[in-house]
């Protein structure tokens, strides 16, 4: 018998860490690492959920037998991992392009989307 | 006769779509034709409604339009809408006729027809959402009229014109957004947008708080269009800038949409809510009457002055609605029609004067119109005298009934009689500012440099003649129009509108 609380709290912690990573980092690659952690938080939760009987939490109230596991949760996890792979591939490609164009991967140096104003001019590094 | 109302609404729209594709001279005449057909349909529809009784909804047509929203194309006509439909048809014909000689432009005529179609749809819509859509349809062509054909000779030139146009559209659109919120609230709480059903329920199924909030929102939205003091400041610039055709449409038709909405939607659907809002509505109405009157006393631009006087007239309409008595509602509807006729007359005349003097400033127009341009002078005098509410001319009845309604209103609470008295004082102020106008431009010795301007042409006379006749007939024979609305207002009011 496994307490599901543990992995659930892990998922929450990873999500928080991932959010922090995305927001607090200046280096684009490290931001992507944060995004990976966020994705993994979702995965943990999906796998945890797949350990529940069919019908999820509601199903528990009706029976204590676990004959129909939540396989979709695991399938979804695999999908997420795949999507993550695609994402990181593309993301890193963009980072490379950025590096080639600007010579830096620091996100604070990229302001091309900003409103033009004296305080926010595009400054090459 | 189920084709009648759809045809009535669709004919002007079709005209508006086709006309821009025709050559200019022909298109302008075709516009008159379309307007005449519309008027004929309006007369026929009114006749049909009248034969079976104005008290009930007649000529109903109902088809699903957007089932997902519960939106139905539901049209109908009764004693409230019939006079307004007739007025719209008449004014549309007159404006189109006017445009055959003065500044003919097929696109302008198309806009006029589009406004006509939208207004007719508003006056016959029996679905809240359809009502709202039709209400909004009018906005865009009117904006175009002001924005494209507006007067650029004012100080500020095109900037002033654009300012007036955007002010008009933004102001009214803001109001409409509020009204939409109220409409959605009503639909959400009752589960239907069908007006006939909502009227039958008379607010059942909605708590008083809901009704008050919805009534507040809807009244606020409609009050912008009406316009109610202090939400009126879009009106004077819009009227001043708009070409004559635009001013006539604006005063004669567009302002009626707001008050019609109050009578058709706010009063019957949300009676308990309006009851709570009524003292405020009435208060703003009487303040508007006095305020606009006083503002007119010092106004220098005649078009602006007529526009401001519209605010005062509409104050009487609002007061009648706020009274929530049969008398008051009848007064409001009567004043609505009367104002449509009289202000259209005034704007035609002022437009003609402005065409001749290239300004509507009182010091430029006057003095001595009575000797210089006698026909236009007398027409202006008639309009002014009607505008000050002289008994025997159209406006008087609306004002009298609105005051009478306010006097015996229970919805206004303890404020009923003060409001009535203030409104009555407003009639004296109206006399003061109209006499000022006449004194400044109609009387007096004509200046030598203005000699030789042509008096009203036959064309102009023919255009305003129906309005002159209507002003006098409505003033002397109020019976027919009052009997049109007498029955139906009882159905709109809670408890049959019995005054305790």
């Amino acid at each position, binding site marked *: *018998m*496994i*307490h*599901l*609380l*543990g*992995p*659930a709290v*892990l998922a*929450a*912690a990873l999500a928080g*860490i*991932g*959010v*922090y990573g*995305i*927001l*607090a*980092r*200046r*280096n684009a*690659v*490290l931001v992507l*690492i*944060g995004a990976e*952690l966020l994705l*993994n*938080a979702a*995965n*943990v939760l999906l796998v945890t959920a*797949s*350990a529940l*009987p069919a019908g999820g939490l509601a199903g*528990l109230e009706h029976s204590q037998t676990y004959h129909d*596991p939540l*396989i*979709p949760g695991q*399938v979804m*996890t*695999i*999908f997420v*991992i795949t999507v*993550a*792979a*695609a994402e*990181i*591939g593309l993301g*890193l*490609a*963009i*980072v*490379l392009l950025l*590096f*080639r*164009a*600007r*010579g830096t991967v*620091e996100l*604070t140096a990229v302001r091309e989307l900003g409103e033009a104003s004296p305080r926010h001019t595009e400054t*090459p590094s | 006769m189920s084709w009648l109302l759809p045809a009535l609404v669709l004919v002007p729209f079709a005209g508006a779509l086709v006309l821009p594709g025709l050559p200019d001279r022909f298109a302008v005449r075709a516009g008159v034709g379309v307007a005449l057909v519309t008027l004929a349909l309006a007369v026929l529809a009114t006749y049909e409604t009248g034969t079976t009784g104005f008290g009930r909804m007649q000529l109903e047509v109902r088809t699903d339009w957007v089932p997902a929203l519960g939106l139905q194309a539901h049209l109908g006509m009764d004693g409230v809408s019939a006079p307004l439909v007739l007025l719209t048809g008449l004014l549309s014909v007159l404006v189109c006729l006017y445009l055959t000689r003065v500044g003919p432009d097929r696109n302008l005529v198309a806009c006029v027809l589009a406004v006509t179609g939208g207004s007719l749809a508003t006056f016959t819509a029996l679905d809240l959402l359809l009502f709202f859509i039709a209400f909004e349809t009018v906005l865009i062509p009117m904006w175009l009229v002001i924005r494209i054909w507006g007067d650029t000779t004012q100080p500020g030139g095109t900037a002033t014109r654009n300012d007036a146009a955007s002010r008009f559209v933004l102001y009214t659109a803001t109001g409409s957004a509020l009204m939409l919120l109220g409409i959605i609230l009503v639909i959400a709480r009752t589960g239907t947008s069908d007006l006939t059903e909502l009227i039958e329920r008379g607010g059942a199924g909605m708590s008083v708080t809901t009704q008050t909030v919805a009534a507040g929102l809807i009244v606020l939205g409609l009050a912008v269009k009406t316009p109610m003091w202090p939400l009126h400041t879009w009106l004077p610039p819009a009227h001043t800038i708009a070409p004559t055709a635009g001013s006539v449409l604006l005063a004669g038709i567009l302002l009626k949409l707001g008050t019609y909405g109050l009578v058709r939607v706010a009063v019957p659907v949300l009676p308990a809510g309006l009851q709570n809002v009524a003292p405020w509505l009435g208060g703003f109405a009487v303040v508007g009457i006095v305020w606009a009157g006083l503002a007119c006393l010092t106004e220098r631009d005649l078009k602006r002055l007529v526009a401001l006087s519209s605010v005062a007239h509409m104050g009487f309409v609002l007061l009648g609605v706020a009274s929530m008595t049969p008398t008051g509602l009848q007064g409001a509807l009567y004043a609505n029609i009367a104002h449509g006729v009289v202000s259209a007359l005034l704007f035609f005349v002022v437009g003609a004067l402005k065409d001749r003097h290239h300004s509507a400033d009182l010091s430029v127009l006057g003095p001595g119109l009575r000797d210089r341009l006698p026909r236009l002078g007398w027409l202006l005098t008639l309009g002014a005298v009607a505008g000050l509410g002289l008994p025997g001319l159209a406006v008087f009845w609306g004002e009298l009934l609105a005051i009478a309604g306010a006097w015996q209103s229970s919805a206004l609470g303890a404020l009923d009689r003060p409001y009535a008295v203030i409104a009555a004082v407003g009639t004296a102020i109206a006399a003061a500012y109209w006499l000022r106008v006449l004194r400044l431009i109609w009387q007096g010795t004509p200046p030598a440099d203005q000699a030789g301007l042509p008096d009203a042409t036959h064309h102009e006379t023919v255009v305003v003649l129906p309005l002159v006749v209507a002003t006098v007939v409505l003033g002397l024979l109020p019976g027919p129009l009052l009997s049109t609305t007498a029955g139906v207002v009882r159905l709109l009011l809670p408890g049959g509108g019995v005054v305790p």
Partner: protein
Amino acid sequence: MSGPDLLLTALALLAAASGLLAVTGSRVVHCALWLVVSLGALAGVYLVLGAEVVALVQLLVYVGAVVVLVIFALMLTRAPVEPSDRLDAPKGQKLAAVVAGISVGGILAGTLIYALQDLTVKVQGEQGSARNIGRAVFSGWLLPFELLSVLLLAALVAAIAVSRHLPAEKRPGQSLTEDGGVQ
């Protein structure tokens, strides 16, 4: 507390701790390596929860491919090996990040604790076996699976297209960057 519970807790702590180090470390390469540890620990968590295939895929794809990609990227962007203080955003933003991270984690944790409480389940091994997963993927989930392959292909093509070296005069960013850091 049973054996799996202990194991799970240990792995979870490891994953969380290494994850935290991955986002706070001051050496980029270390960060990437801490990520490896975290992802690996997660694979262990999956295994304990009975998701064998997922754990394997995690190791293969994430630890194997993704992290390698990250490390490559670090190398290609000339990331400094020594500790650097330019990895983190300015102070204010960092504070916002702390607040956002804690609130996201807190809200999620709160919700999940409230939902699961002390719920326990019995994990059956065959639940996440390759047979079951394979059957599920190739029956009910076939269409998404195929779509996913298209997505991967598209990502592949896109990555190549984006990262291809363009001639200098055709580069879109040319006008905005002056001398730029173009190699």
